[in-house]
Structure formats: C-alpha cells, structure tokens
C-alpha cells in the first residue's frame, strides 16, 4: 500500500465516527491532498487560511463533544497556531484541573525536499523536535506507510481519552 492510500485508509477509518470533523482550509476542494474520501465531505469544516483560527475552532468543537482532525498543508504554517496548540490545547487539562480536556488530531505535512515540486525553506521545515519540547502529547513522525493506519487509530483512541496527537506526514513519501 502506498503512503497516500494508507493516509486515505486512516482518514476513512476516522470518518466512521459521525462526530469526526476534518478542519482546515482548502479541504472542500482539495480533500487534504486527496486523502479525505469524497463521501466524508459532510464532515469537513472549511475555514479561511488562518491556522490559529482553525486550531481554535477544533478546540471549541472538542469542548462541544466533536472529534476534530486539523489539517496543516505545511508544517511551517503550524507556527501560526502555536499559541492555540501550546497555551490552550496542551494546557487546558492542567490549568482547569481536569475539568476540560479538549483533544485534537493535528496533521502536519512537511513539504518536498527530495523530489518536485520544490518549495523552498519556509515550506519544507520539520518542527517535530521543537513541538516535542512544547507540548506534553505525542508527536508521531510517519516515515513508513505501514505505520500510518495504526498511528491514526491510536491518535483517535487518545482523543477519546481527552489527549491530542500531532502526526507528521511527508510529501516526499506521497
């Protein structure tokens, strides 16, 4: 199975739960690089290109009982959402003394480095190591297609327990 088909299988599995939501910009047209099946389009929350807003919406959806999956087409852009990820998503359980535990699955894509289309430094950075120091939830780097379905299944299990997961994908592997 290819990297892309495994991602599609993982999204298909997440979409079985009607509470699932795919959050991000360009999803209604691009379906996250074609990894969200068209049949799951009703689960898409289309947003403007505003990463902090996207993530905040996901946190709010989680507070309301939904299961959001946020798609960042480049890991570089996640920095715009760092405030919401670090100061809210990762911190809410502690600062609320367990009363609130919003949880999201964060899909972060590292741009091409070894094959076209090349997009330059600010579209190919991998901040996995940095985020491991910033948050207390798992940051999972998906280097092998065989780990994708199980990694997203584990992320959903964590989410149902009120824990987030950041998963790092690579366009070079698509």
């Amino acid at each position, binding site marked *: 199975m290819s990297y892309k088909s495994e991602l599609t299988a993982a999204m298909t599995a997440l979409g079985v739960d009607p509470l699932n939501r795919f959050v991000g910009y360009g999803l209604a047209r691009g379906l996250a690089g074609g990894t969200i099946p068209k049949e799951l389009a009703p689960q898409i929350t289309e947003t403007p290109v505003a990463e*902090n*807003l996207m993530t*905040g919406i996901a*946190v709010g959806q989680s507070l309301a009982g939904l299961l959001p999956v946020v798609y960042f087409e480049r890991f570089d852009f996640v920095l715009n959402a760092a405030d919401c990820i670090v100061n809210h998503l990762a911190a809410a359980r502690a600062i609320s*003394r367990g*009363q609130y535990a919003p949880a999201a699955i964060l899909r972060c894509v590292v741009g091409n480095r070894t094959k076209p289309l090349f997009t330059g430094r600010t579209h190919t950075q991998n901040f996995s190591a940095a985020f491991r120091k910033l948050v207390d939830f798992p940051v999972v780097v998906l280097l092998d297609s065989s780990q994708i379905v199980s990694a997203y299944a584990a992320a959903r299990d964590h989410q149902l327990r009120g824990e987030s997961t950041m998963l790092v994908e690579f366009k070079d592997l698509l």
Partner: protein
Amino acid sequence: MTTHTAESLAAFEQGIKARFADGDLPFLVHLSGGNENELVEIFRDIRPQDWVFSNHRSHYHALLKGLPEVDVEAAIARGDSMFIFDRERRFYTSSILAGTCCIACGVALAAKEAGDDIAVYCFLGDGAEDSGHFYEAVRFAAARDLPIRFIIEDNDRQVDTSHDERWGTAERWNWPKCVLRYRYAPTFPHGGAGLPPGSVQFRQDAIERFVNSQ
C-alpha cells in the same frame, strides 16, 4: 440566572482585596471593579445552557455565571485567580490574550450545526481587541452568523497603556454586530489590589500553602 447585584459583586472583590492586603494571597490577581452594573445587565440574558468564555479578570464573570462564591474564593486562594473553570456551568477562562476567541467560535459552530439552543459569550478587554486572534474569530463568526457575542470590556487600558497611546488615536474600530462594547473606568489597576508598593507582606503560611499544593 444570577442572583448577584452590583453591590454583592463589589463586596466580593473588596473581600479579596482585604485578603490580599493581609498577605494571604501571594499571587497575581486581576480584580474587577467599576463595571458591575454593565455586567449584571449583560448576564440577565445569559442562560445556564450558554457558554461563557472569560479572561484574566474573571471573578465577576464566574459569579454571574452561577459559580458559588465559596468556590470562586477557594480558587483564588489556591492561586487560580486566572484559572477559574466550571465544566458543569460551561464556564471557561484563559489569560492568554484573545486566546478564547477562536475557541468560542468552535463551540458556537458546533451548537449551530447541531441546532442546539445554545449561545456563546466571549469577554475580552480592549487590549485583546488589538489582537489578530480576535480579528480572525470575529470575521468567521460574523460571516457564518454564529450564535456568539464578543463583549469588549473597554477600560482604555492594555495593561497600563491607553488606546490613544498605543494606536495614536482614541477612535475605536467598528466591528460587526456580533461584537458589543461597553466602556468603564476600572476600580483597580491591571494587576494587584491598588495598594501602595511594599505595603503587603505575604504571609509565610500562605506561601507554603501554595508551594505545597503544586
């Protein structure tokens, strides 16, 4: 839904001030004051099923949402003045500037999509109004006609700096209808209880109580 009056709110905060002055609260506190009448009026419309997102200055919001005084005071006494939460009463706070605005949008969006009779109220200061996070949230909420109200509690102060000083004009921005603004003169400074510098000696037992609770 609230039984609080302007007088009872002010009395509560004066009690916190007294404990602070006594050295019993060795924490950063942001006391409310000067906006009692406005808040009592706003909270007349807020129902138990509605969400309230508050900020660093949360004491009045918490009391008016129905949190018992004893619980709010206990939270303050353990150093959680900026971290008062109540899941059952749908009360959420953040002391990160404008941090709740986009989160509140997510709750409102979920309520609208589900067809629930729920409204969301997000309180912020005029300092947070300056933030891009607020701008993103307001545009999204207005465009989607979400069941949300952002309330700017405008005390003309971003910590200690006036609107005119930080923007070069006292003129306020015109936001969409989902944004309400009221202006007031605050009773207390941004942080602390407005006591003379060096006049508060924090008690050792209070310091140990906090350190041992961490």
